[in-house]
């Protein structure tokens, strides 16, 4: 029997101790009419060898295409040590560290993660992670509306150049609580959010918060200082949505504007998490000290034990659902512990210099890719402002067909912007991280040129 250690003798001895005839007798409090015979539609069990064969075939079936899609999930090199250590049973099969004395490994690691995220974002405190970047932004918005005592408003300004899936996630999580998301249009030429666009919305205020994403969904860099000052002059809190790799080289939210952003969140996937079809990833959420009691999710603190020796424990649990129930800051229970383990080890291995090199290599590669593709007649940059590691490119032919033709040549040519931004159609959002080589990019460019020639 898979994963059940009992021998026939064990079963007999245990039943005798309980005083019943059969295991079935242990279910005698369940109404007879509810008990079922078998799960007919579930297949019979497989041996490990058989399921291995099946999974290997399926993993192979999806091929190993050359990937130039970013759009919120980025293909970075992950040092071998990251998942070898993360996969250790002591991390992999441990529970939430409620029993602190028996969980110091996980707790210290989470504290180190929190310290890394505050270092990267330039804010005071971090939680121990949320499900992913998009749901993390939803929690950040809920938190901002709760925390803003100066502006009692349920309206939050959200740029249209925020990741479309983040926008949808926000919609499904925050609108049932009566929060209204107000769209900020992006600049037609630059792809960024301009002060003029914000000023035009001012009459709809006041707003509890402004969401700023740096870089934005189009890869374009925002004038974060001006946007932050605009919002804070109107008592709106500033929520920065940021990429942790970009933060190695870009101004951290804590430094934005004259006072710094209030909250920063984002997707930690670029720190050691494989693409893995979209998850599991981990969201991070940092804020100023003043808002710490409004921060949702697990938080680890350093304290001392009975002997005065330093140790780590979950803290501020009075915010959480298992204590406060219907008065909690969120219903969230787990964090993404295992992914945070990977992110922490990954960040430690790369260090500040390593992350800078990755960021710079991503930027250089995406610039190079843009240059190569724009040599093809009809392909040109869609926006005229600087970008980090992704670019929106106008295409001279319908994108759906282009992407299909490229995929047939084992190239994933980018994210089709027209699907969510009909006004940009036909355009692709392309990304080349540090793992793409000059040869990879040449292959993409020559294939695209060939496909377009036949289009």
């Amino acid at each position, binding site marked *: 029997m*898979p*994963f059940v250690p009992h021998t026939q003798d064990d079963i007999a001895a*245990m039943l005798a101790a*309980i005083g019943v005839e059969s295991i079935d007798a*242990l*279910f005698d409090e*369940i109404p007879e009419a*509810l008990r079922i015979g078998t799960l*007919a539609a*579930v297949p019979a*069990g497989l041996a490990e060898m058989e*399921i*291995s064969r099946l*999974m*290997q075939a399926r*993993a192979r079936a999806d091929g*190993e295409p050359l*990937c130039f899609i970013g759009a*919120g*999930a980025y293909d970075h090199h992950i040092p071998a*040590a990251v998942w070898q*250590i993360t996969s250790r*049973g*002591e991390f*992999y099969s*441990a529970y939430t560290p409620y029993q602190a004395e*028996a969980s110091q*490994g996980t707790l*210290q690691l989470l504290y*180190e993660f929190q310290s890394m995220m*505050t*270092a990267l974002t330039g804010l005071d405190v971090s939680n121990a992670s949320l*499900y*992913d970047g998009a749901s993390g932004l939803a929690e950040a918005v809920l938190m901002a509306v709760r925390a803003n005592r100066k502006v009692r408003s349920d309206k939050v300004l959200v740029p249209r150049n925020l990741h479309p899936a983040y926008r949808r*996630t926000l919609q499904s999580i925050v609108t049932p609580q009566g929060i209204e998301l107000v769209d900020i249009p992006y600049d037609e030429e630059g792809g960024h959010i301009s002060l003029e666009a914000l000023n035009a919305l001012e009459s709809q205020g006041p707003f509890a918060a402004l969401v700023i994403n740096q870089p934005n969904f189009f890869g374009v*860099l925002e*004038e*974060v200082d001006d946007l932050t000052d605009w919002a804070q002059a109107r008592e709106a809190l500033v929520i920065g949505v940021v990429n942790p790799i970009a933060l*190695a080289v870009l*101004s*951290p939210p804590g430094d934005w504007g004259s006072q710094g952003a209030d909250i920063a969140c984002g997707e930690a996937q670029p720190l050691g998490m494989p*693409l893995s*079809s979209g*998850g*599991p990833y981990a969201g991070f959420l940092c804020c100023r000290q003043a808002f710490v009691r409004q921060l949702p999710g697990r938080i680890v603190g350093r304290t*001392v034990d*009975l002997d005065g020796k330093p140790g780590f424990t979950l*803290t501020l649990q009075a915010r959480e659902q*298992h204590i406060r129930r219907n008065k909690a800051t969120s219903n969230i*229970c787990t964090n*993404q512990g295992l992914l945070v383990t990977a992110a*922490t080890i990954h960040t430690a291995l*790369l*260090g500040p210099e*390593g992350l800078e*090199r990755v*960021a*710079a290599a991503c*930027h*250089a590669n995406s610039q190079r890719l843009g240059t190569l593709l724009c040599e093809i007649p009809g392909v040109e940059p869609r926006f005229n402002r600087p970008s980090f590691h992704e670019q929106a490119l106008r295409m001279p032919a319908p994108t759906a067909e282009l992407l299909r033709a490229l995929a047939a040549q084992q190239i994933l040519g980018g994210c089709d912007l027209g699907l969510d931004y009909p006004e940009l159609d036909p355009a692709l959002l392309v990304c080349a991280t540090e793992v793409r080589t000059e040869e990879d990019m040449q292959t993409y460019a020559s294939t695209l040129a060939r496909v377009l020639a036949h289009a």
Partner: protein
Amino acid sequence: MLIQEGSKPGRRATAQAPLTRHALDDLPVALRRRARAALPEVSELQAVRHYTRLSQQNFSIDTHMYPLGSCTMKYNPRACHSLAMLPGFLARHPLAPASHSQGFLACLFELQDILKEVTGMHAVSLAPAAGAQGELAGVAMIRAYHRARKDLARTEILVPDAAHGTNPASAVMCGFQVREIPTGSDGDVDIDALTRAVGPQTAGIMLTNPSTVGVFDRNIQRIAAEVHRAGGLLYYDGANLNAILGKVRPGDMGFDVIHMNLHKTFSTPHGGGGPGAGPVGVSARLEPYLPVPLVTREGAHYRWLTEADRPESIGRLTAFGGNMGILLRAYVYARLLGREGMRRVAEFATLNANYLMTQLRAAGFNAAYPQRRASHEFIITLKTEAKEFGVNAMDFAKRLLDYGYHAPTTYFPLLVPECLLIEPTESESKEDLDGFVAAMIAIRDEARTNPELVKTAPHRMPVRRLDDVRAARQLDLAWSPQA
């Protein structure tokens, strides 16, 4: 020592980063970081040693019995991990086209079907990233259902007082008020109180069955009928699904919506507190509201169903639609077990719980509901021991760590004083269970003869009992170079 404290300027794990240092001159200076982030600078060996040593300071299923009630800490088969980590699955981009996703989507489609059968529900979405997110989705669907019928007066969700804290918190996140229903002295929901509470304001009830007190609610069909008669819907919290896998199905009990915790019943790792996965299943009338994305099959071709296909969906809960790697692990586990293996999960989880309860009672411990069968878990109340020896449930829990057993869930559910909620799972052998009983007896002897020893436990862990009050009052949540 923290990794940050072992940092030395200029030390680097040089093999990890790109060899070339590219310029960033074309990025505006005003948008660039002025001072380098205070991240650790360590060698590769230093990092490997540091995190390997940290791992050794953890209890885990792989190293210790972990009878944590309501958490289903069973063995996480290694094959589930290694097969979900095959390079083809890891490298797949979430926005890869269907042409490059057929193998992956086949696994998810089949997992949806398996979960439908296991729960007796009409349709399943794998989207929620954890149990609490499944609850949020479930309650949001209840809300969407009533709103679609213009039945707008239903503002209340009923929750038994023994429920997990996530239940009331999730209901509030969907804009509902929560009304608590007491538990009767036999452990079942107080049916008279329920009857008084239901009415035209009832949107639904959230129930765990077997409940968090470790018994199967014998009145479940009556509860379903009462709530349905009042126009409310039934939400099943699948936290305890391990107890009934292959034996009874929530759909047959009358539930309209259910979430499953794959990190419990389907043995995906708890990972030190996540990632989980909390798929939701629904009856036919709630299908249009399921969170997206879903996987469908058209002929021999699999594809995603998104917002465009499901306009009435409650929407998207994460950017890319779920914890895919965890879903793959659950799929492998389900295929390894098969239909027979699933039934055995419930049978042996129940056998182990009843055996452990019997042995602890025989040793003189008090079960909270001695007249009832245990489901896959049960409650021991240490009220007598606390009174006689001044040693409480938390002291027992901490001392168990010294004996090499992770503590059971303590002080939950809140309605039983000095309680330990114990869930041995089907993974543990008779010898392991006997060892746990022996440890409990030994600790009680210590409580009698040397209570200080127990009250100051643990003594054999990397740290002694921690000052939680100080942790909350003198907040130290991040290392900084100045400190």
